[in-house]
């Protein structure tokens, strides 16, 4: 509380309270563990997300092995999953479902939501708007610790007797409500629900903080039309989160009631294990509406920060202003608004009224317009630029490519008629992994490479970054492009094995190819991990502004100070994209440089 007050009062120059905190010499615990400093919290989010990411990636390799060579024995599976779940090295069907469920959950929520927003909103919002810290350092700290506990619970659920939640990351009831239906819906699902509830708390605490910080703590001169697009993206993402995560929370809460207290929100007329259940009158479809009311905004919660990061990096490394700054803000807002009225496209074949389906077709296809505008603006930014190919830039360009490639298949799926035979096939898996999975993770990597010097005061190796990028890029397309064809052959997702149907025999070869690329991609991440952790300790020392960037974070001293800037806060005189401005000697003009005589502010 103290802090919130603190940072608030010194937008100007005097130091007041802050001086005290400097002199207090915080101990190890308050400095590194229970820190309220946004820069430390950002690192904590990143490292936790990396740990969870490695876990989820290993799971994906495991189930890819099963898909490529079903029923074959792999000692590595036995080693990790044990005799119960992989007797003789062959994964059991229950474990297969558990792995895809936890893989999806971790990737979507823990890596690409908590990890991505948690890391970069935390790091960049205060530094780029010119604030000393988040509005409330304490709530920010809580946000991380809720995330941490939620991660621990999710991780712990892997080790329980009946196995973790296994009803898919979308946990549709009744499957997720009835342990009789699948063993993972016992304690495993309880832990999943508890973990996700805490996750929602973490997300809300974080998001509220981000919103308040952007609105209230911008430094002098930092108007909304001078905000870097990263901050715009983080702000809108936070708003989406605040509006949609509570709905997930309600959905989860009602499910908990159904599971534990005999209510029937989602259950009706069920006969299972030789017994007719009492519950009647509920609707499993209600859950889907609630879930996707969060679920679709969620995919943009994942994607927008990645797009924001990309905007910043592409402009900086092209030495050129982002093309169509206002159009970019406009499309972020349009996407955010529309993302709340398209959720029905996940439910075209649930028995939804066909007319309502048509409405969702319309709104869903509308969202393709602002998406297209963004893609074209990125490409135009590259045009006649002076492109410096840092690893971050490569990942940003990769993102634009995957965003386009995955976006166009969205147009097919959004056509309700075409969705009939494609829903829940591998075509959908291909679509969302390319457009969301690959794009968002590329955005995250780009951010890590770009702001590593800001986070750790050292540089990562470019060479290793290149190796990492190219193998990852090849692997991503190698895995997910052929997957469209598997989907078009009619293969459903979440199948333990495709061998029960002669129809799918001819997709076997593709599955082997895909698994090959998946293993390759996983190995490439070892390069990244090495580069990341090695560079924290041994990387080349960073210079003040290694990418010659305009935004404020590069004006703060490399040494982490609580309060970010010694002395007064920087003042802002221009938008963040004055790269290669005619009439300037240097090809960049930081935001805190006043306009020279006769200079007009662009945009």
């Amino acid at each position: 509380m103290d802090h919130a007050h603190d940072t608030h009062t010194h937008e100007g120059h005097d130091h007041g309270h802050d001086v005290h905190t400097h002199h207090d010499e915080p101990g190890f615990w308050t400095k590194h563990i229970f820190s309220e400093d946004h820069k430390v919290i950002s690192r904590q989010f990143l490292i936790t997300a990396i740990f969870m990411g490695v876990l989820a990636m290993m799971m994906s390799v495991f189930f890819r092995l099963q898909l490529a060579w079903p029923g074959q024995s792999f000692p590595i599976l036995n080693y990790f999953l044990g005799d119960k779940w992989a007797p003789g090295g062959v994964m059991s069907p229950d474990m297969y479902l558990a792995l895809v469920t936890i893989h999806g959950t971790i990737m979507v929520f823990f890596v690409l939501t908590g990890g991505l927003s948690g890391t970069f909103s935390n790091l960049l919002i205060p530094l780029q708007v010119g604030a000393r810290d988040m509005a409330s350092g304490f709530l920010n700290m809580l946000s991380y610790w809720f995330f941490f506990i939620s991660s621990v619970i999710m991780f712990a659920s892997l080790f329980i007797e009946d196995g973790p939640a296994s009803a898919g990351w979308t946990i549709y009831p009744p499957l997720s409500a009835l342990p009789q239906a699948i063993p993972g819906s016992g304690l495993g699902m309880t832990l999943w629900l508890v973990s996700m509830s805490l996750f929602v708390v973490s997300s809300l605490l974080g998001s509220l903080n981000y919103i308040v910080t952007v609105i209230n703590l911008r430094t002098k001169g930092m108007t909304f039309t001078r905000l870097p697009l990263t901050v715009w993206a983080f702000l809108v993402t936070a708003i989406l989160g605040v509006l949609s995560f509570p709905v997930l929370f309600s959905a989860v809460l009602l499910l908990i009631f159904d599971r534990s207290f005999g209510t029937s929100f989602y259950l009706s007329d069920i006969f299972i294990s030789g017994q007719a259940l009492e519950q009647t009158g509920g609707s499993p479809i209600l859950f889907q509406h609630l879930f996707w009311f969060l679920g679709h905004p969620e995919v943009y919660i994942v994607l927008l920060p990645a797009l924001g990061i990309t905007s910043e990096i592409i402009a900086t490394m092209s030495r050129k202003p982002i093309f169509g700054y206002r159009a970019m803000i406009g499309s972020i807002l349009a996407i955010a608004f529309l993302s709340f009225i398209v959720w029905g496209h996940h439910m075209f074949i649930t028995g939804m009224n066909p007319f309502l389906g048509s409405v969702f077709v319309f709104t869903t296809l509308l969202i393709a317009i602002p998406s297209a505008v963004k893609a074209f603006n990125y490409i135009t930014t590259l045009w006649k630029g002076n492109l410096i190919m840092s690893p971050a830039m490569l990942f940003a360009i990769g993102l634009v490519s995957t965003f386009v490639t995955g976006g166009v298949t969205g147009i097919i799926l959004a056509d309700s008629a075409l969705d009939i035979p494609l829903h829940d096939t591998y075509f959908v898996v291909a679509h969302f992994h390319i457009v969301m999975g690959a794009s968002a993770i590329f955005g995250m990597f780009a951010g890590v490479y770009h702001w590593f010097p800001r986070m750790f005061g050292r540089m990562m190796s470019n060479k290793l970054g290149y190796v990492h990028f190219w193998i990852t890029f090849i692997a991503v397309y190698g895995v997910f492009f052929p997957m469209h064809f598997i989907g078009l052959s009619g293969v459903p997702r979440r199948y333990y094995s495709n061998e029960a149907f002669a129809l799918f025999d001819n997709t076997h070869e593709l599955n082997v190819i895909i698994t090959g690329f998946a293993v390759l991609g996983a190995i490439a991440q070892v390069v990244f991990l090495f580069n990341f952790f090695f560079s924290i300790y041994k990387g080349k020392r960073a210079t003040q502004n290694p990418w010659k960037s305009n935004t404020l974070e590069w004006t703060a001293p490399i040494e982490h100070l609580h309060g970010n800037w010694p002395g007064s806060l920087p003042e802002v005189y221009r938008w963040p994209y004055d790269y290669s401005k005619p009439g300037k000697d240097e090809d960049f003009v930081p935001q805190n440089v006043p306009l020279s005589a006769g200079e007009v502010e662009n945009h």
Partner: protein
Amino acid sequence: MIYIVILIGILAFWQLIKVYEYATIINGSEEETVTESDTRFNAKMMMVFCVAFFVFCIWNFWMYQDSLLPPSASEYGKALDTLFNFNMIIIGFVFFIVNAVLFYFASKYYYRKENKATFFAHSSKLEMIWTIVPAIVLTVIIIYGLKVWNNITAPVNPNETIQMELYAQQFAWTARYGGKDNTLGKSNYRLITDNNPLALVVEDPNNGDDKLVKGEFHIPIGKMVQFKLRSRDVIHSAFMPHFSAQMNCVPGMETEMHFVPIYTTIQMREMTKNPKFNYILLCNKICGAAHYNMQMDIIVESEEDYNKWLATKKTFAETMSATPDEPKVESVKEEMKKYTAITATVEEVKVEEKK
């Protein structure tokens, strides 16, 4: 397996080299954060990647066009095939052009010290173009798509259709025919017994003549079939890929779909040059351990053959009054056991079948 080990081996070795390189980089003191040679190399790679990627995409299309589903075997499916191709041409075009331009720019405009980027911050005209052009294209896509959708989902007159039900449970399907009166009688989930697996209300006169079949069901060519869908336990999805038909089975409510089959099984066997070809019904909503093996065969044949086949089946009334030595529907528990066993053995069975 060996292939993976080799792969890992090669990469590990390669990585060692990189680590070595890395150490030298750290010690080096370069002026620029990214060297010009690195930039040039990666820019060139962008073009190389672009070409390789497109080749890979086309190779995929080329190689696997035959493994895709055969032409759709229902009337609506035909319309869907056309709609799909129409959309694919549009998005294929966008995909190739936009990616090509992206990679081309990325490889062309790489950093050179003497160059300066063009300060080009915005152009209303360009932005208008790429708002309006996609808007127009999408309008066409929406209108065309919704026309097909409205056609497929338009209500049908039950009297002009064959009334059928697909009943889903972990992990099997049962098909029910409306019988003589072509009407499906009522059900109540509390009535499930060994003899009455679909929970039909015995007193409902519409139920007596209904016919229940497992394993495979038949439908006649050229007739509209309307399927009512129910589930006993969790959500399943009745997916018939060859007919481009799918609808969820949701416990507690009834859903519906309908289509007209246009090729008999025999015709399809000829068209696909696969004497073993069979239409299938499968489950496409995660429903538990044996979700991947929840199937039923579908036979499309002439109306005559269909009637003959259906005549051999017992009505619900007949099975209800069956003498004990008649084959009975297994008890639910046994069924559960059986399907758990299937889960374990299906691998072996399938492997043997192939041999």
